[in-house]
């Protein structure tokens, strides 16, 4: 018998928590994007677990689309990082403060 779905769901919740903590505390834009990938993967794992438990293929189809959107997001995000780096020679998000009120 396969391990219960709750184990995988708890694992996904922990992965999401680690990713969220990294996103809130790290300052390099590149590392923040990596933490975003961690959180997206946690959600993907949850979708696949529900797909298995409910015996429904839709969860896996949604994971497929999440992967496509993640790829597009990383492409545009890293393009922005490159453009910002050209102007400021840094990827630290602390230095992007000229829109501060």
């Amino acid at each position, binding site marked *: *018998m*396969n*391990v*219960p*779905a*709750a184990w*995988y*769901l708890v*694992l996904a919740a922990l*992965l999401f*928590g*680690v*990713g*969220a903590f*990294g996103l*809130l*505390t*790290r*300052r390099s834009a*590149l*590392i923040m*994007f*990596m933490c975003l*990938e*961690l959180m997206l*993967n946690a959600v*993907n*794992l949850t979708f*696949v*677990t*529900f*797909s*298995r438990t*409910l*015996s*429904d*293929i*839709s969860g*896996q189809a949604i*994971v*497929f*689309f999440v*992967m*496509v959107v*993640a*790829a*597009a*997001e*990383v*492409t*545009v995000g*890293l*393009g922005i*990082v*490159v*453009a910002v*780096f050209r102007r400021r020679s840094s*990827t*630290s998000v*602390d230095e992007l403060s000229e829109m501060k009120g």
Partner: protein
Amino acid sequence: MIASAYSVPSVLIFLTAALLILVGAIGVITLRHPVHAALSLIMTLFGVAVAFVAQSADFLAAVQIIVYAGAIVVLFLFVIMFLGVDRREGVSVEPLVGQRAFAALGVVLTVGGLIALMARSHWVTGVMSVSSAGKAISTGQGNVKELGTAVFTTYLFAFEATAALLIIAVVGAVLLARRERNVDAEEVSP
């Protein structure tokens, strides 16, 4: 006790996946060097792929390795090398006072609250096999065919929309990373 309730291979696979995922994730958020963090991210992605295989999502596991580890992490590494930002970032400095403590508190409250809430009720409820009209998906031998059928029939519109999204993302990335031809004096890149 655990081994008697569930089959030993499935427990071992789960522990392997959990170890890969959590060690890799903690590496991503603690390692100072961006290249090391990216390599640690690959470890997490492999762990997630193992968890996908264990839950008979074979196609997604392959896509996970090819797209994530093969394309996205390589893109990360390429940008790190391209920008030359492979110097260490200080993780000991904390510009905002108490930021880390508040972040930890918020994350622990969210995840702990989620787990505590779900532990009191059923983890998974709902109608089985809605999208396939009650027909269970195949397990073990893989369900690539069912996934393909769902993507190209039920979710055809979303599939076409993702094609447009990818084109827009590629054009946008080229536009953002492009060097200006007629630069102003202040915009001369280093």
